């Protein structure tokens, strides 16, 4: 068989390929349909809009690859933002605020991890519980009233370096780091191992408790960062910030080809998934698609993006 054909076949083997194809298709269509789409400024906007979902999805992807799931990310975003803002307001120190926000995310992640590893609570239920608890704490801390949040966080959330949004840059850098982490480090490889076959991994001497705790902690930390970016962007930390994000984040991960049953998935796929979702929202505005059709179109695109892959993979599973 000739070279180029086998290249395409190789690409086709990757589950993220069909979503990438969909992303390309939407982008190509948009570049014809709208004069504004290809403007660097617009492309960068799309990148920025994808960044929070993408950053949180990096952590979520590792959790899912390790056969877990973290439903609490949306609430952790809100709680971290609120803690960061309150600390900054009360201590007057930006550093304390930022560190406090990240530490909150990390702490939530660790709690999730411990509920799973120590108390053996199914992660779906454990994180459903912390989803509620974190949201409640954020509301209690603020009495439901948003807290102003500026300074460096605002730079991270809304600032630009050479016209490139800082949060977008952060997303790129983190994606590269997490990608390298997942593919090249021992812990990274062990994450895939325990997701594929937890029992065999444990018998081979992988510390599955430690790895599980680690992925949840990292996911919490990234959700905390996401919270700071989101609140920074708005210069205001609302206890309801991030509500419902879990579904967007998990959708980005699954769209990117990660298996909900663990063991498989790529970081590049996650970024593609997040970009596709941001691109769709951008397309609706650029093309001025009528209200209710936006909702229908979104569903259709998601199904098509993954459907391509499924059709090709016929008879593969079971």
């Amino acid at each position, binding site marked *: 068989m000739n070279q180029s054909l086998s290249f395409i076949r190789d690409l086709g083997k990757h589950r993220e390929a069909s979503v990438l194809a969909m992303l390309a298709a939407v982008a190509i269509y948009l570049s014809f349909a709208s004069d504004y789409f290809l403007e660097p400024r617009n492309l960068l906007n799309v990148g920025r809009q994808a960044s929070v979902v993408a950053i949180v999805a990096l952590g979520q992807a590792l959790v899912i690859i390790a056969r877990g799931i973290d439903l609490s990310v949306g609430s952790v975003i809100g709680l971290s933002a609120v803690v960061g803002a309150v600390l900054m307001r009360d201590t007057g120190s930006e550093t304390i605020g930022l560190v406090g926000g990240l530490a909150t995310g990390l702490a939530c992640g660790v709690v999730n991890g411990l509920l799973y590893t120590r108390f053996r609570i199914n992660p779906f239920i454990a994180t459903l519980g912390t989803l509620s608890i974190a949201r409640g704490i954020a*509301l209690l801390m603020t009495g*439901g*009233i948003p807290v102003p949040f500026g300074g460096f966080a605002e730079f991270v959330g809304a600032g630009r370096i050479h016209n490139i949004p800082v949060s977008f840059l952060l997303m790129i850098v983190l994606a590269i780091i997490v990608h390298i982490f997942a593919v090249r480090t021992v812990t990274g490889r062990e994450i895939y191992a325990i997701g594929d076959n937890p029992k065999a991994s444990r018998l081979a001497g992988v510390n599955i408790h430690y790895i599980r705790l680690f992925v949840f902690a990292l996911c919490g930390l990234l959700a905390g960062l996401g919270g700071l970016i*989101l609140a920074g*962007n708005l210069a*205001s930390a*609302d206890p309801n910030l991030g509500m419902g994000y879990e579904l967007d984040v998990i959708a980005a991960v699954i769209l990117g080809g990660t298996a909900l049953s663990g063991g498989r998935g790529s970081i590049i796929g996650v970024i593609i998934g997040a970009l596709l979702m941001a691109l769709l929202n951008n397309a609706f*505005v650029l093309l001025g698609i009528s*209200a209710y059709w936006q909702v229908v179109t979104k569903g259709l695109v998601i199904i098509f993006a993954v459907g391509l892959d499924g059709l090709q993979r016929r008879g593969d599973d079971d």
Partner: protein
Amino acid sequence: MPAAAQAPEGGTVVAVENTKGPIKIAFLSFQNNPFWTPVTEGAKAANDYLSKFNATVDFVDLGDELSAEAVVAGIEGALAKNYSGIVVVPIFDGTARIINEATDEGVPVFNIIAEGAAPSKRLAFIGQDATSAGKQIGEYIARKMNGNGKLGVITGYFGATQHTQRMNGALGFLKANHPDIEIVGPFENKDKAESAYSLVQDMMTANPDLSMVYVTAGGPFGAAKAVKDLGLSGKVGVVGFDHTPDNMQYLKTGEMVGLLDQAPYQQALDSSVMLYNYLVAGTEPRSKIIPVAGKLLTPEDVQ
């Protein structure tokens, strides 16, 4: 008891003497964002005021997710607890049946803030009519835009009655009276400020000549922040609802050019007192629908 010959502060209704013995009023409301803070405070003020008349107003939290089911469950709970009367924020169409049920059981219900379109046997409704509030804002938009230009529209949830009425109230008025104003959207932001931010960014990309953004529900300050970050303060204005601190801040800096409120504190207080008066003296409220004119704040007001 010569306690109060005058209305409590922030309210407009005077309580009558209690000849009936203890009265228990359930005040059912939500809590998920700053909008509800004055509602809660109004209920608390009513309790303070009416406690002098051997009546209590118990604030019952329906939680942080607004839904008809939550309202129904709340009213069912209040009926189970034998309250004498109920003040509720029914919002949805689907709450009419349970309100009728309560009324038929002899427990009068006073609707505040927003109610569904389906008629019910509630004692009265005090609040802002969403459609006319939309129209009020529409008139203001037209004035600010001098009758032409592009207006971006962001609504909370597609299909949420109040959001839709506010939107259509404004858009209907503009289409009829100012056909030169071009509408961009509507787009859904699910009450999220960050989504409003992104939408304004994209709207400005596709419509560099946009001059006004109307946000019908949650998160108008996100739109204002986007205007600010795009360096368009003064060129593009945002109008929306509710005098929450987030929104007010941009009124001061000028990205927000109009904010309509619903006098929630007064609604909460007056409704409780009127319900009390009805319970002890049978005094009917002055009409079945008591409109509350929203106060439209502009940058000039806060300067």
